[in-house]
Each structure stands twice: as structure tokens, then as C-alpha cells.
């Protein structure tokens, strides 16, 4: 069976859920080989084994993380040359998408971004993605080279399948050109203690309607075990950090449940949340476009509705 290269999405060895999802998808089309770049493999090892990595390529040299994107693309190009994989899967993060772009040019391969499903079709892999702010679903195929696919988080349910991966340390000659962009500082963001936005099963977002008070949004999120998101209007006003922005120029989320509070539902916001399974909105304007999308909506003031809902959910929990 052909190898399928999976670029591990992790932060210092803390493996993100997308990696398990990619390994699951990789098992459908071949034998998953995880490519682990950076520090922290000891912490990641167990997760990679649990989700079926048959092999792990380890690239721990600092050259891969001290420079932007290009060295990792060279590493993967080298592995593609050596292993002729059935596909290369990477997460749909900014960094990994750019690795995919460079890898495509280096290896003469087509690239498909933001896959929500991958299956073997009659003529190669059939990749499903959602386009035009969720208004269309398309199936795409790579016709040239090795299919390079970026996988959207929270789309392919992860399934365990224990394996004992063979480990191989890889080093590549990283070219001077690939070292040209230097990462000169890296500051970790403060952790909120809540689930990460792209991985969370539930997201509660606040918009301009919060008037800057995210208290009720956060309280509701906490009782639901949810991540907190924000509209661009709320971010631009300085009420919530940009890393929480949902939408075209923020993160794109696909949770089981998305709750929009005090958000009108502009097309750029929809682009980042329209693939959520269930959508709920609270807005005091009955005409707000967000209500066109909802499974359930409440017209009214979020400052009374959210606290009441929070209490009721708390009570139901007993």
C-alpha cells in the first residue's frame, strides 16, 4: 500500500485534533506516515500511534522552524521524491497551506485547499470542499502529480486505530533561498482555558450587539464547554482578540453548534461559520440576515436571553 504523508499539526508536541482527522482520512487511501517537524515529539508520539501512523518521519532541526514555510516545503518535496506517496495531507492553517502551495510547484502537483472529505474515486482521489461562503459543495480532483490536500479542521471525524509507528529521523539540505525569511521572534498567545476555536464542538460568538461586554457570551460558552468567537466588528472595536475572529478574514469553523449573539450575519461572517451543523442566533432585530440561516433563533436582547439560557442549561445539568 502506498504511503500517505501527513504533516502533523501541533504546538510544541501538543497534537491538534486535525492531525487525528488527517490520519483517519489517510488510512482510507493508503498507509499514513506522519511527518513531525519541530520540538516535542515525545509528547506527540502516543497520539500519532493511537490514530494509526504506521511511520513517523522526524525533522527536529531548528532550521525548519526558524524560517518561514520554505524549509518544510523542501523537506516534504524530498519525502515525496523518496516515497512516491498516494497523497500529501496538511491542515488548513495559514502555514500549512503555504507549505502546500510551494510543494505543489516543487513537485509539479495539483493542490486542493480546505477539503471536508476525501474518498477514493474512479480516477484517483475525490476531494469535497465547500465554496462561495458555503453556498456550493464541489468535488475536485488532482490530475497531475501527487495530490496535495489541505484538510479543514472538524470535518472528518477522527477514528482511533492503534499502530506502532516506525521512526526515522530525516535531515535535508535546506537551501540558502529557503532560509531567506527568518522568524526572529515568536510569542505564545495567552491561553484562555477554553477549547480552541477551530477544534471546538460548540462555538458561542459575540458581535457589535454585545456593546463590548462579552461577559454573557463567555458565561454561556463556559456552561456549554464552548469556544468563544467574535465578529470583525467586535474585534475592530478592540473588544476581543483578533485570533477569535470568525469569518472570511478570521478563522473558519465547522462546529456541531454555532451560536451567534448580537451578530447581523454579513456575508464575510457567514463565510466562516455556515458549515456548522446547527446554527442558533440571538438578535434584537427580527430582520437580521443571520435569521435566514438558523435552526433556532430568538429575537430579543442578548443581555437577558443569554443569562437565562445559561441558568437553564446549568439547572438541566443538575
Amino acid at each position, binding site marked *: 500500500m502506498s504511503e500517505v504523508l501527513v504533516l502533523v499539526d501541533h504546538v510544541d508536541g501538543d497534537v491538534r485534533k486535525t492531525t487525528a482527522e488527517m490520519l483517519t482520512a489517510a488510512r482510507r487511501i493508503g498507509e499514513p506516515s506522519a511527518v513531525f517537524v519541530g520540538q516535542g515529539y515525545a509528547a506527540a508520539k502516543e497520539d500519532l500511534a493511537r490514530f494509526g501512523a504506521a511511520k513517523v518521519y522526524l525533522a527536529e532541526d531548528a532550521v525548519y522552524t526558524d524560517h518561514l514555510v520554505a524549509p518544510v516545503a523542501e523537506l516534504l518535496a524530498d519525502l515525496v521524491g523518496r516515497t512516491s506517496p498516494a497523497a500529501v495531507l496538511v491542515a488548513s492553517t495559514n502555514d500549512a497551506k*503555504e507549505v502546500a502551495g510551494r510543494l505543489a*510547484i516543487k513537485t509539479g502537483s495539483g493542490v*486542493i485547499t480546505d477539503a471536508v472529505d476525501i474518498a477514493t474515486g474512479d480516477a484517483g482521489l475525490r476531494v469535497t470542499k465547500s465554496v462561495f461562503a458555503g453556498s456550493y459543495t464541489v468535488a475536485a480532483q488532482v490530475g497531475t502529480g501527487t495530490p496535495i490536500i489541505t484538510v479543514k479542521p472538524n470535518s472528518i471525524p477522527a477514528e482511533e486505530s492503534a499502530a506502532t509507528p516506525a521512526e526515522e529521523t530525516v535531515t535535508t539540505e535546506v537551501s540558502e533561498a529557503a532560509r531567506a*525569511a527568518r522568524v526572529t521572534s*515568536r510569542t505564545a498567545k495567552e491561553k484562555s482555558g477554553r477549547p480552541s476555536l477551530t477544534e471546538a464542538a460548540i462555538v458561542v460568538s459575540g458581535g457589535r450587539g454585545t456593546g463590548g461586554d462579552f461577559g454573557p457570551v463567555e458565561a454561556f460558552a463556559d456552561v456549554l464547554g464552548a469556544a468563544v468567537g467574535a465578529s470583525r466588528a467586535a474585534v475592530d472595536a478592540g473588544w476581543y482578540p483578533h485570533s477569535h475572529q470568525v469569518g472570511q478574514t478570521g478563522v473558519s469553523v465547522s462546529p456541531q453548534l454555532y451560536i451567534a449573539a448580537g451578530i447581523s450575519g454579513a456575508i464575510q461572517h457567514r463565510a466562516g461559520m455556515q458549515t456548522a451543523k446547527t446554527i442558533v442566533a440571538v438578535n434584537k432585530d427580527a430582520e437580521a440576515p443571520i435569521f435566514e440561516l438558523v435552526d433556532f433563533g430568538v429575537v430579543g436582547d442578548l443581555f*437577558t436571553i443569554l443569562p437565562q439560557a445559561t441558568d*437553564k442549561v446549568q439547572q438541566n445539568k443538575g
Partner: protein
Amino acid sequence: MNIVVCVKYVPDAQGDRGFESDRTTDREGVDGLLSELDEYAVEEALKIVEAGEGEVTVLTVGPDDAATAIKKSLQMGAHKGVHVLDDAIAGSDAVGTSLVLAEAVRKCGDVDLVLTGLASTDGVMSVVPAMLAERLGLPQVTFASELTVDGGHVSIRRDNEAFSETVEADLPAVVSVTDQINEPRYPSFKGIMAAKKKPVETWSLADLGLDASQVGLDAAWARVEDTQARPPREAGEVVTDEGQGGEALADFLAGRRLA
């Protein structure tokens, strides 16, 4: 300082976007415009030359109507435009587009900085800038939410979910900018009048030394096989709060086993 800004002409997201019979993006049936996200790149280029000296060239690869993207950029203050126009380009994927852009940037001559938006609002791939850097053999300094250029050197702030990074490189470089970086200006009346006299060159594939077989739908390395309009969401239940709205919401979630 010579800056080339890559700008794309895209179907308006407010319109009814869809596909042609060959499953390429419909660029005729919906009004198009300069991709909003590329306005940030034009603005940043203008700020750089206004603070020092230099010239801003806007470059677009697209159909006849893509001239409107150049026009808007010139109205904002860019100095000249280049429109790569060739029927053979229609249906190109990111790989093909980046090839044409790379050859066009080369033809522009001595370029210090290639600026792009963070994504095109139709394809939303965010891969063209990286592909362009790869093809041109230039450093890639992308997703800039802050940018400083001085003394032949560029430095940016790049954010992701876990980190905030500083990335630096020597010029020339390919830099993409986010919508956090600035507030794009509106064209002034003076700008609109001045734009009419600014030079716009139109280049064909042959002008770039490229062959029709290298681009377009037939040469695309990845292609769409099937498209389906997503079924409209079933109109959900919307209740008006008369004191029990929050409880109704909690009950709905309980009913769906979501809370």
C-alpha cells in the same frame, strides 16, 4: 522603491456566485470588482512610497473586465497598471495563475517588493503568494498584519492561533498583507480624474514568453469535477422573547442533545 501589487478581479460576494458549464467560476453572470482584500495591499504600497519614494504598479491576470480592478487601484493612487489578458488563461488554477504572475513580475524589471492580498475572495486559497515566491526564488514574508520596510529590509508581524511572530527578510521579497494592516482609502475626486491619464499596458501570454498549453483549464493540475448548490437551510424556528426566550433556547439545545 519599485512595488508591484497583484490585484484580482473577483465576482462580488454579495451577488449570486456560481459556475459555468465547464465548472469554472462564473465571471460574467455576476458583477465583479477589485477583491476587497487586495485593497489592503494597494493601500500599503501607497503608504510605503508616500513615506519615501518609488512607484506602484498594479498587476492583474484576468478577463477584459479585470481592467476595473486596475482602474480602482489607479484611482486610489497607484502609478501604472499591467493587465495580462489572454483567452487561453481562462480556467487556470492557482498553479497556472502563479506562473503567469511570476513571468509578469519578471517582465516588470527591477522590483523591490511584490505585495499581494491575503486571499482572493472567490477562491480563498491563500496559496498564490507562496507559489509566487517559490517561482521567483524570493523570500516569502506573508500574512503581515504590520509591515516595516527600510534599508533594503522588510519586517512583519504574523499571527496565528498559537503565536505572534516577527519575520524578516532582505528585499526583494513577496509580502502578503491581512485586513488588519491598514484602512484602505477611498479614491478622491482628484484621484479619479488623475487615473484616466495613467498608463496601463496589456500583455498577452506571448509577451511573457508563455505558451497557451501551460495555462488554462486544460493545463490545470487540479480541477473541479462536480458542483452542487448547497440545499438552502430549512427555515428554522424563530421565537420572539417575551420573557422566556433564554429558556426556549436552552430547551431547543436540550432537545437536540447539544446541552
